[in-house]
């Protein structure tokens, strides 16, 4: 009998412990994301009737609403850029005193692992940042909120945003996010090496032919100077094949078209730069030295890289340099990278979250803060904001950033994006090291991609 009562007491005790542990866990999570949360957190946790259906007056007179807290997860505001995000937050809260933004910054390296766990656990922030490549995976898995109703409700003026950038964050006709910032890729060149090698400076009309010829002349200067650098990897490749009139997928995205003659020709061309003419260094010649460092040390004539190099090069390059629109071949194609802002499908404060991402994405204030800080490019179309961006030098041809926008292409949007990029990347490397011919590498890639990727 005693034994029995004891067992009962014990099981009760166990249950209690479990409850305490569980409560501590969830409490801990809450505190984590809202370390300086005010008592108003409570108000935000209780679901509002109106939160599902955005009403028109809510956006016009938000002050009338009760106080809410929007949790915002991001990676691009880590480190040096944190203070600019805080500036934006302050500007926003001045306009919307009833919305408190609770910023949670996670370093890029951990961001997607953490976000994945939290989304699966139903603990995702109300609004968060996603880069373009991951956006598609999230959108197709149905964890993001359709923001079209909000656009309609607030009569959002879509022309304030770059159309291509905005369009990038829709999938299957549904708008799942807004572009927070974007960047593109240009041809950067060392003016002094060009003059030394007596080659004409790159222009907007350059094609692969001029690019390779100039590279060869610069390579001929001396043993340790290289003509060009353009990484042989997935992101460059999907763009390069389009410059040559090819693509990785067929038009309706139902089959891979990786090993078409245009694509093989493209790969052959870039592999030749490494293995045949050697105007581009091999991995061994590079030997762990970063491509940017090679350029900064004055040993590289041209490098194809992103505008995010501006701030580094402005500070650390001692010679004269400038930029141009990337050369094309049969046609022009330039890169588009963007970080988008999305809303969690289960957010209880979706309306306020939308106000916040709308502000970050499309308001003049936020855009101006971004431009002044040199923190990527806002995806906005305000002429005066963009004007102030153009005034910064070097590079003196900053206009090329906007000229490139005319040729933007986006990476092939599929659900298994990361896996596809890795698989193709491995085969591209095999070719760039001479382990396989261009034809063989792309044949193998085509087969493996068809086997493993569901389209």
């Amino acid at each position, binding site marked *: 009998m005693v034994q029995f009562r*004891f067992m009962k007491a014990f099981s009760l005790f166990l249950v209690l412990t479990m409850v305490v542990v569980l409560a501590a866990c969830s409490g801990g999570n809450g505190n984590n994301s809202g370390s300086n949360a005010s008592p108003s957190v409570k108000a935000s946790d209780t679901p509002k009737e109106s939160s599902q259906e955005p009403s028109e007056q809510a956006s016009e007179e938000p002050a009338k609403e009760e106080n809410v807290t929007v949790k915002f997860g991001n990676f691009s505001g880590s480190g040096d850029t944190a203070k600019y995000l805080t500036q934006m937050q302050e500007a926003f809260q001045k306009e919307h005193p009833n919305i408190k933004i609770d910023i949670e910054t996670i370093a890029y390296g951990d961001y*997607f692992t953490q976000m*994945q766990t939290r989304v699966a656990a139903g603990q995702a922030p109300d609004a968060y940042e996603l880069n373009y490549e991951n956006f598609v995976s999230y959108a197709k898995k149905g964890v993001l909120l359709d923001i079209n109703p909000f656009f309609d409700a607030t009569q959002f003026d879509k022309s304030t945003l770059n159309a291509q950038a905005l369009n990038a964050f829709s999938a299957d006709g549904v708008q799942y996010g807004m572009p927070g910032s974007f960047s593109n890729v240009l041809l950067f060149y060392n003016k002094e090496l060009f003059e030394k090698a007596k080659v004409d400076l790159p222009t907007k009309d350059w094609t692969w032919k001029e690019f390779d010829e100039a590279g060869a002349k610069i390579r001929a200067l001396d043993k340790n100077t290289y003509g060009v650098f353009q990484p042989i990897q997935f992101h460059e490749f999907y763009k390069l094949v389009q410059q040559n009139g090819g693509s990785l997928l067929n038009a309706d995205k139902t089959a891979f078209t990786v090993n078409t003659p245009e694509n093989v020709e493209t790969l052959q061309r870039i592999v030749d730069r490494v293995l045949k003419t050697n105007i581009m260094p091999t991995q*061994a*010649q*590079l030997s762990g030295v970063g491509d940017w460092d090679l350029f900064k040390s004055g040993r590289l004539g041209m490098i194809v890289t992103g505008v995010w190099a501006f701030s580094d090069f402005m500070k650390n390059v001692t010679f004269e340099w400038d930029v141009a629109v990337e050369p094309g071949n049969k046609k022009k194609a330039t890169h588009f990278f963007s970080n988008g802002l999305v809303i969690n499908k289960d957010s209880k404060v979706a309306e306020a979250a939308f106000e916040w991402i709308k502000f970050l994405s499309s308001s003049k204030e936020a855009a101006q803060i971004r431009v002044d800080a040199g923190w990527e490019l806002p995806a906005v179309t305000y002429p005066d904001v963009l004007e102030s961006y153009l005034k910064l030098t070097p590079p003196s041809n900053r206009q090329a950033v906007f000229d490139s926008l005319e040729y933007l292409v986006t990476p092939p949007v599929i659900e298994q994006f990361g896996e596809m990029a890795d698989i193709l990347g491995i085969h591209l*490397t095999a070719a760039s*090291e001479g382990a396989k011919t261009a034809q063989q590498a792309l044949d193998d890639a085509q087969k493996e991609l068809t*086997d493993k990727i569901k389209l």
Partner: protein
Amino acid sequence: MQSERNRKKWLTIILFLLPSTIGLLVFSVIPIVYSLVISFTDWNGLNPWNLAAGTPDFIGFGNFKSILEGEEFWRVLKNTMYYIVLYIPLILIASVLAAVLLNNTYKAIGLYRVIFFIPVLTSWVAAALIWKWLLSDEYGPINAILSFVGIDGPAWLQDRIWAMPGIVFASIWKDMGFFALIILGGLQAINPTYYEAAHMDGANFWSRFIRITLPLLSPMLFFVLIMCVINSFQLFPQVMIMTQDAGPYGSTQVMVERIYKFAFKYYKMGYASSFSWILFVIIFVFTAVQMKLQKKWVHYDS
């Protein structure tokens, strides 16, 4: 009265056991069971579970089947085997040598132990970054030293064949101290009278080493061997940092690296779970075989 005391005693025991039991449950038992369940699904690691709506879909042994039928698993296993074949003999020789050296040093033994042990305490991230530089083709000291002897060193980590040996070097440097310390413990436990007797019989250093030291060390060597095999199958941070993800043409793709990528990069949590259960079975089998084989060569001093 008796039962009252008994109850108190039990309560004390339970209270003491509770913290570690909860830890074990929450951080080991539940995740293990959970991953076994996931391994039979196609869960993407993102959608909340909603069995009514069919997410995730239970696909039975589908994941296991496609892993074992695919070419990737065998390629990755081959890479791991390449690592093991290089690593195991080298680490055994290196740590026995280090232990013998330490055992014969009487002055400043503490200092030497520290020197050998420091790499063990270093984080893999720091160590791998240093080794990346050491093994660099043009600027790395290792190739500089090799060129003194007239050898033109390869671009270690950028080369399909040499990337794995490069990682083996780093691993040996990192792990040697720990295993040497275990073997040193074994060496110091050997009764010196054996050596004295052998010395009387005129055995030289080499035959003393072969006939006395090694057999009496065999329990420690056995432990080291098992640990090394398990560690090898779990090779991960070196690969990720030194060879940027998976090395030239995937030549350093290994099991744990694949599991990580599938789970957190490709959104295939179910597939990754199946992969890790296969890894578990492999390690289990290897360890069981070694346990079986130990009777043939491990001698316990009784």
